[in-house]
């Protein structure tokens, strides 16, 4: 087993280097054909906010050369309804579930984190996304607030273009691991409407690599999960060579579940035999 949160007393133990990235399988309730929970070391849910969000109307997706832009507008059922409807299913999943908490009003994420107490046997960690436009003190504030609210491992998802700038602050504030990360935002028309969203698809991979490269120079001593543009075993192995402890996939699950399954099998031999964390 690999511990992705060695500094946390609860730890975050995974039995595969491959994680289902944020929303790849929805909230753990939507699985493509041929892909089962055991393909992944852990699953990260789609982001959930304190209150329900209707999200943006159509169109939500635009295809671009080498990928796509997807803006759901944060569409989600809200924290309370999600937990009520999914807690039992999460218990049955037999794979660590990392709940992605979406921002909103100040304190929302800390409130949600605090109310995961009853689910600590079910939820293995939380993902907090640091948005593109926050500064160091804001980053520190909301991660520290979540840290005070829950003992669960915190995975801070950083924007790739600012990962090196924000990483140490996120860790000092209480993050146990970093996810690198959110690709840069972009815009492209679909049905005569501009869809604005972080770049997704293979085109995001070079941004992930650059962020990994910069973080490697910082020698942070915390696990880093590479996410963004990983579509093959070669991509995944390159991320591991560049210092990532694990990789997360999302678009590959959506586009080609069979390829995601093959990757989950082919990456298994590269699992470290013993975690020294």
């Amino acid at each position, binding site marked *: 087993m690999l511990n992705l949160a060695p500094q946390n007393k609860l730890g975050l133990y995974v039995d595969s280097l491959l994680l289902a990235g944020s929303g790849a399988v*929805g909230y753990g309730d*939507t699985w*493509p054909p041929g892909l089962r929970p055991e393909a992944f070391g852990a699953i990260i849910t789609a982001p959930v906010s304190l209150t329900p969000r209707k999200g943006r109307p159509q169109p939500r997706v635009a295809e671009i050369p080498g990928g796509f832009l997807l803006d759901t507008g944060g569409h989600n059922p809200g924290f309370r309804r999600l937990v009520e409807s999914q807690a039992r299913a999460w218990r049955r999943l037999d794979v660590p579930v990392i709940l992605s908490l979406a921002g909103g009003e100040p304190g929302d994420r800390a409130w949600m984190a605090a109310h995961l107490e009853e689910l600590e046997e079910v939820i293995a960690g939380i993902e907090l996304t640091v948005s593109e436009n926050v500064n160091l003190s804001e980053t520190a504030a909301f991660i520290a607030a979540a840290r005070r609210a829950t003992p669960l491992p915190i995975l801070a998802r950083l924007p790739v273009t600012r990962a090196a700038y924000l990483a140490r602050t996120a860790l000092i504030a209480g993050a146990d691991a970093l996810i690198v990360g959110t690709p840069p935002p972009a815009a492209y028309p679909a049905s005569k409407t501009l869809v604005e969203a972080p770049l997704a*698809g293979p085109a995001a991979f070079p941004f992930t690599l650059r962020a990994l490269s910069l973080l490697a120079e910082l020698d942070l001593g915390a696990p880093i999960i590479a996410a963004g543009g990983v579509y093959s075993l070669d991509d995944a192995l390159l991320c591991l060579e560049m210092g990532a402890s694990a990789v997360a996939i999302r678009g590959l*699950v959506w*586009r080609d*579940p069979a390829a995601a399954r093959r990757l989950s099998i082919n990456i298994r031999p590269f699992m470290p035999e013993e975690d020294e964390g």
Partner: protein
Amino acid sequence: MIQVRARIQERETRGAVHILRLHAPDLARQLHPGQAVLIQTGWSLDPFLRRTFHPIAIDEATFRIRLAPDADRGRAWLRMAAEGTEVDALGPVGQGFSLPDHARRILCLGQGDAAWALLPLVRAASARGVGVALAVEATTRRQTIPARDLPLSVEYHVATLDGSAGRRGDLRPLLPDLLTWADAVMAVGGMDFYRFLARAIEDARVILPRGYAQALYQTDFLCGFGACQACAADVAGGRRRVCLRGPIFDLVDILR
């Protein structure tokens, strides 16, 4: 839903339109009229998104998709793919048309190229001995379904905006009689077409009752299994994932 390799078994060209017959027995056996199939186009990860098709014919081992001329590079790749080429297909997506048990006479209404998605339903209903009237409204003859593609028992009406086939104009004048005759309606078209249909039903039958008309919500799918939320649209009283709740909805749910 399953993911399979589908082989292009046959290509039929009708002018600029290509009709591909894809051999994929496991998928064909699961397909119902109105459901979607998502097909990867290209040899690599580009184009990234699968293309969404509603098959125009389904049999035990194969299904057919229709490629009308357009500027999309994914469909252009499919138009050029040789017979024997294998493509990756994911499906069936969502819920298809459901022929009500009580239905003895159904009216199928289609608009433009999308109308072709009604063909499997027309054939299935006709084979069950249900009386079928098909009415298609199109811009021009090229979009219309040739009568030779229909079972002999089907009553067929065509209206084209340019008058190149059938009556000139839209279907409006035909609907009162057809709607009085039919005890169920199945429709494929755009939202304006559905609003126009709803008004026509209310005119002919006083109200638009739930269960009387089904319609296909046209959208392109990304994952097709509910995870990505790309297809969420305002249907059935909320913003819902079309791949799970649709793409066939009660007409009442599409409009409200």
